[in-house]
């Protein structure tokens, strides 16, 4: 599975690691639903660290769309809401 961390890189993660990432992803979603900014920041860092740790960076010359796209490390709740609320915000 290909996972992009915005502003950073794409990573290829083995299917065997997905359970662990799923749990972290659910925590992240829970923090957004609860409007819990510190919880969101912590969950995001944990998720990004796991992706970097378990994933292999996709080489620059490989062109592939991602199955999952994760926010940038310093993203906050407002930025996430803006991204999700209006697809027109994504440039390109």
């Amino acid at each position, binding site marked *: 599975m290909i996972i992009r961390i915005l502003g950073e890189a794409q990573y290829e993660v083995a299917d065997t690691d997905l359970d662990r990432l799923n749990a972290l992803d*659910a925590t992240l979603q829970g923090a957004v639903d609860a409007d819990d900014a510190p919880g969101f920041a912590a969950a995001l860092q944990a998720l990004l660290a796991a992706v970097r740790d378990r994933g292999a960076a996709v080489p620059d010359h490989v062109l592939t769309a991602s199955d*999952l796209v994760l926010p940038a490390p310093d993203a906050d709740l407002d930025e996430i809401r803006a991204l*999700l609320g209006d697809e027109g915000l*994504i440039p390109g």
Partner: protein
Amino acid sequence: MCVAVTIARRLALLFRVKANKALDRAEDPREVLDYSYERQLEMLTQVRRGVADVATSRKRLELQQSQLHQAADRLQAQAAEAVGAGRDDLAREALTRRSAALSELTAITTQRDALQAEEAKLTLAAQRLQARIEAFRTRKETIKATYTAAEAQTRVGEAVSGISEEMGDVGLAMQRAEDKTAQMQARAQAIDGLLASGALDDASAPGGHRDDIQAALDATTGTSEIERELAALKAAPALTARPAADSPRAADPAKENQP
């Protein structure tokens, strides 16, 4: 992955929707390839310009850092001079201004570091985008040479989704860098104003005007020198006035420029 639509999945879908919209508009999916490639090249130019803009802003902050450093050092020296002259009021004023200069310095150092990080990220993004545009170009030529329109649908979709996501990511990175640069510029302008007002100005700089603390210190020193010369005259009435070169103030060339 779980069925629940999480943020990561929604974000991935949003990027894909953008790519699909471009494909849906075209009669033959292969038309999208050339159009997309042109936009990629435009974007690469924009990103490179963005890197240059951020670097310019960073350099401006670095210049201000060094100006604030000089101002803080000069105010420290003035405070010491004022204490030596028994002018605690001037020393206090100089130290207050020095503290203001140092707090500005701390703030712009943080901003400068943030800009440098943005510059590094954008530089990497530009390199990655360039590599992926090259990959896209190769794939575009292969698709156009080899495949029928029907077969091209899938291949074009894959290529366009991949590059579209990359462009979206780079576009977001540029927006972030622009936002940070704009924040920085507001502060840089304020500091330029502060430096231009003379509050932190370097009195000994060539052409620089004399600030009020230095003027008061000079007046104090001048008064005590006159008193000393007067005392010397009284002690030895036959002695002529000492040459100006003996005076410690006149020995400082920077101060000779002052009005």
